[in-house]
């Protein structure tokens, strides 16, 4: 089965091509082709995971793509347990999102195009996870960026949506600058693009430590862009302008996890370059806190979830930086299911209410039971409540953090867990409980069709049980499947489990007290902490800052370079040379016509004058001549005599 794993990404690609060129007009057929392709890929991914489980070694299959000195690329696949898990995650979420979209996108005039883009995305993401070398992963990395751009701006008539797409593409590409430079540094030093050869070179110490550190940090810049880590996190909340199934698939469960996947895939490098790993951990930790704090006060249901995603990705990045390969990838796996569920649930609510603002909602539990229950399950899971899957993966992360000599990572980790529980249940209470705030919208609300609720239920099931494979006292669990070199067994730390559960529960209780019972007034808190509230509400003013410091000066620079330097100096010089040449020829013309020609003409004039003067003498009358001769003779005689 492994040798044919390339079929998994190929099927969605075929679906994309088929829809674009053939079935574009037939909406139903297009969606069926797209869904059929991803379902088949899902089935094959199950076989792959089964055969990797049986025989968990990395397998590679190669084909020469380009062969130049220093740039020999063999396209191939690297299928190890990490890849197998990712294939499973991507296929599962993608399949469910495809099905859900049939309901969510019904009636959209660009229905077929939507499915073709979903297929293109699935192809690119699957290609990304099976890549076996740096160039290949970068190619698919950019392709997922493209599909993300296309899907964020899917409703491109809205300026805000096309703005968001552009912002996402350019911001992540800024991170990719680092990615490219990192690839250049590392591959030049190691002399290979292939992951395994590179890792061998790293472990054998063939790459100087300094280069390795610099290369690893640049490489991480790519992950910072894609996984929306500080300081490139600004694009992800805006990306919520895309259709909600897209937010679930791309901007929550899979593509944004690509950065985490990249760090996990190259964990060997980070384990060897401790300083770079520390940078990774600090960025992740800081982002986790920063995003969670913003999420506390946002009012758009999707934006809260977006900041929650950034925060959770920060968690994963942090733990990878601390060397927790198993814990990081495990949280990536569980997070995919409950975060996809949260977004699809939010989509179901938005579909019913036609608004994103949670303060227009309320009491929806009565109208949308399935959506509400599944959403709450996901919220419990992300908050890390026993025994849902989020509990196990979050616990793994905190356990790794607790082993680090500086307690800061553990403290922030626990704090973020509490914040997460708070803002998630703030959403739950405001949206699903209490009294309807907008009666008219409430009256029109209804539960979504089965094609949407069934994926919700499946994801709810996964949000509960997916983490059970990683229960610490399980003998052949996740830890003995996805590991780096040696199975990574963290002894279950009951004290930590109890503390994190208590923190999560107190977060939930605080949300309950503020937004359900009303025993603590949010308004009073808001008034009391007006300044911090304003800063958080405005997301620490990152967008404004970037506009003032980067975007606007850059645009001014471009304008300056064009009008002042290019037209004003360079072309001015060119035209100046031209004009000077014309001026010179004018001068020369003047000189020619006045001086040179003047001299010539003057000579001619003088000659002519003399000539015409002399001409008078030539009268042609003999008597005149005779007179002159006679007179001359007389003069000569007189002269001789005297």
């Amino acid at each position, binding site marked *: 089965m492994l040798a044919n794993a390339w079929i998994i990404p190929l099927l969605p690609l075929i679906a994309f091509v088929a829809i674009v060129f053939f079935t574009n007009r037939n909406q139903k057929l297009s969606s069926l082709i797209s869904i059929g392709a991803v379902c088949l890929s899902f089935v094959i991914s199950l076989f792959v995971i089964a055969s990797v489980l049986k025989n968990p070694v990395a397998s590679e299959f190669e084909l020469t*793509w*380009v062969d130049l000195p220093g740039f020999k690329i063999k396209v191939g696949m690297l299928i190890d347990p990490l890849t197998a898990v990712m294939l499973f995650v991507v296929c599962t979420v993608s399949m469910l999102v495809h099905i859900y979209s049939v309901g969510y996108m019904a009636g959209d005039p660009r229905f077929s195009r939507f499915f073709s883009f979903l297929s293109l995305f699935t192809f690119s993401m699957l290609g990304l996870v099976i890549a076996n070398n740096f160039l290949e992963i970068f190619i698919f990395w950019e392709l997922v960026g493209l599909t993300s751009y296309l899907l964020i701006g899917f409703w491109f008539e809205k300026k805000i949506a096309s703005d968001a797409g552009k912002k996402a593409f350019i911001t992540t590409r800024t991170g*990719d600058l680092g990615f*490219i430079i990192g690839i250049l540094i590392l591959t030049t030093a190691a002399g290979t693009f292939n992951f395994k050869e590179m890792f061998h070179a790293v472990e054998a110490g063939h790459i100087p430590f300094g280069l390795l550190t610099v290369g690893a940090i640049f490489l991480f810049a790519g992950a910072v862009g894609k996984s929306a880590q500080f300081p490139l996190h600004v694009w992800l909340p805006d990306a919520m302008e895309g259709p909600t199934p897209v937010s679930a698939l791309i901007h929550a469960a899979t593509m944004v996890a690509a950065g985490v996947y990249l760090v996990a895939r190259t964990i060997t490098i980070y384990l060897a370059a401790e300083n770079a790993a520390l940078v990774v951990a600090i960025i992740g930790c800081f982002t986790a806190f920063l995003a969670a704090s913003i999420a506390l006060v946002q009012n758009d249901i999707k934006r809260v979830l977006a900041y929650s995603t950034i925060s959770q990705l920060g968690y994963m990045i942090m733990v990878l930086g601390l060397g927790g390969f198993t814990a990081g990838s495990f949280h990536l796996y569980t997070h995919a299911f409950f975060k996809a569920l949260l977004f699809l649930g939010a989509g179901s609510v938005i579909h019913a209410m036609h608004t994103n603002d949670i303060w227009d909602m309320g009491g929806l539990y009565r109208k949308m039971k399935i959506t509400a229950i599944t959403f709450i399950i996901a919220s419990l899971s992300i908050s890390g409540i026993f025994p849902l899957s989020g509990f196990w993966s979050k616990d793994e992360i905190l356990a790794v953090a607790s082993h680090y000599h500086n307690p800061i990572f553990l403290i922030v980790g626990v704090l973020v867990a509490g914040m997460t529980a708070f803002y998630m249940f703030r959403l739950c209470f405001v949206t699903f409980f209490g009294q309807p705030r907008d009666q008219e919208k409430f009256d029109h609300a209804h539960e979504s069709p089965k094609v949407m609720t069934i994926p919700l239920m499946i994801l709810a099931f996964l949000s509960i049980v997916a983490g059970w494979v990683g229960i610490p006292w399980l003998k052949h669990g996740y830890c003995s499947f996805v590991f780096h070199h040696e199975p990574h067994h963290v002894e279950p730390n009951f004290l930590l489990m109890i503390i994190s559960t208590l923190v999560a529960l107190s977060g939930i209780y605080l949300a309950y007290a503020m937004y359900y019972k009303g025993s603590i007034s949010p308004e009073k808190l808001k008034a009391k902490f007006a300044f911090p509230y304003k800063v958080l509400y405005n997301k620490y003013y990152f967008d404004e800052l970037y506009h003032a410091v980067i975007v606007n000066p850059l645009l001014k620079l*471009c304008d300056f370079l064009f009008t002042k330097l290019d037209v004003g100096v*360079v072309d001015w010089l060119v035209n100046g040379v031209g004009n000077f040449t014309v001026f010179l020829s004018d001068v020369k013309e003047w000189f020619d016509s006045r001086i040179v020609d003047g001299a010539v003409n003057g000579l001619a004039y003088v000659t002519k004058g003399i000539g015409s003067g002399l001409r008078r003498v030539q009268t042609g009358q003999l008597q005149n001549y005779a007179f002159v001769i006679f007179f001359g003779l007389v003069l000569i005689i007189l002269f001789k005599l005297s």
Partner: protein
Amino acid sequence: MDFPILTLMIFIPFLGMILILLLKREQESAARFLAALFSFIPLVLSFILLARYDGSTSGLQFVEKYEWIPSLGITYFLGADGLSVPMLFLTALLCFVSVIYSFGDIKERVRQYFAFLLLLEVGMMGVFAALDFFLFYIFWEIVLVPMYFLIGIWGHGRKEYSAIKFFLYTLFGSLFMLVGILALYFTVEPHTLNMMVLIEKAPELARGFQLLAFVAFYIAFAVKVPIFPFHTWLPDAHVDAPTAVSVILAGILLKMGTYGFLRISYPMFPEGAIYFALPIGILALINIVYGALVCMAQKDLKKMIAYSSVSHMGYCMLGMAAITVTGISGCVFQMVSHGLITGALFLLVGVLYERAHTREISAFGGLWIKVPVYSGIMMLFCLGSLGLPGLSGFVSEFMVFVGAFPVFNVIVPLAVIGVVLTAAYFLRMIQAMFLGTFNTKWEGLTEISGREIFTVIPLAILMVGIGVYPSPLTNMIKATIENIVHLVTG
């Protein structure tokens, strides 16, 4: 060599030109037909060239060599290697495509137009096939004449200004080349203009002479590429030229510059190439970043694409300056890729301009709704130009980076910034023109026609083809480039 394929590729368009001139003024469709036919035959021949070219050796193939003016050591000497075969093919393809495109937008003095276009093809083919300096210089200068008239007569805007600017600028450059050629001729014993012999004799040339000669040729080629600060003829000429001529300007004429470097400057004056590697690398960086920044300030679509050529040709120069096999392969790959992508972009700008009579980016909006096929194709080529993986531009840029990074540790990371800037100006343009609310002013805009699609399809196929699987092209050029690098670095 039994079958004079290169001679045929050069002179069949010439024959076509003569036949067109023999037509009567009103026989416009006959002129169109003849132009299509006589640019199609070289295209077919170029396919034969591609098929029969053996990429495993760096030696010359399809050689034709006859004594011409023996007393001056001048020969009629044609031949092709891994450097010229892709360029000959690109020339044949873009000329044919340009002729077909011109069916629609050229309505005045049709006969003369196509005659000039075919003469242009003669010159360009000759440049890429000639291996004798005398012949090379003749073809090099032949290109100027039809180009001058094509811009000056059938252009738009300040066409006379642009035409004369182009002409004088290039002529200024060629004079330096002429001096260089004469200096070479009189320095080498026995006097010869045979390029291959001159390359063999290169090690005998004094270092000082090599540096001087390199500079002389540099000016000639830098104007053509164009390298900052010799680039300001380009936006004017490209913008004011008729569509098909912009395609040829961007697609082929610029490559005559880089081709000249690789055919003449680098192998003949290796000392110069090594000595000036860093300055050229820095100028390449300026081209890339400065070109991209200036693009962002453009309001006219065609001008933006014209300036994007400045930026993209910078990648060629960066790869070349590194003098590594991968870097120069990236350069040649970029020459082909840029020809395909920018050629197509100019065609597509022409398609829009013909209908809307404006190229102001901000005058449009939401076109994706009205003309989805046109918008889709345009966006595909924009993505190609901004270096999206899977399309040819990415491969060449990456090859340049990989090839140049070991040599230029600082310049290359700075040049990578160009990748982001390019994405930024293309996405801004796409957003302003194709996304957003539809500007109802363009309610009457018609979709791209079948003939117009026909002209860009081959370019799209090749762009995707060598982008997905670059080996056929890299294998074709590799041996020749290894030889060049060997000649330069020893």
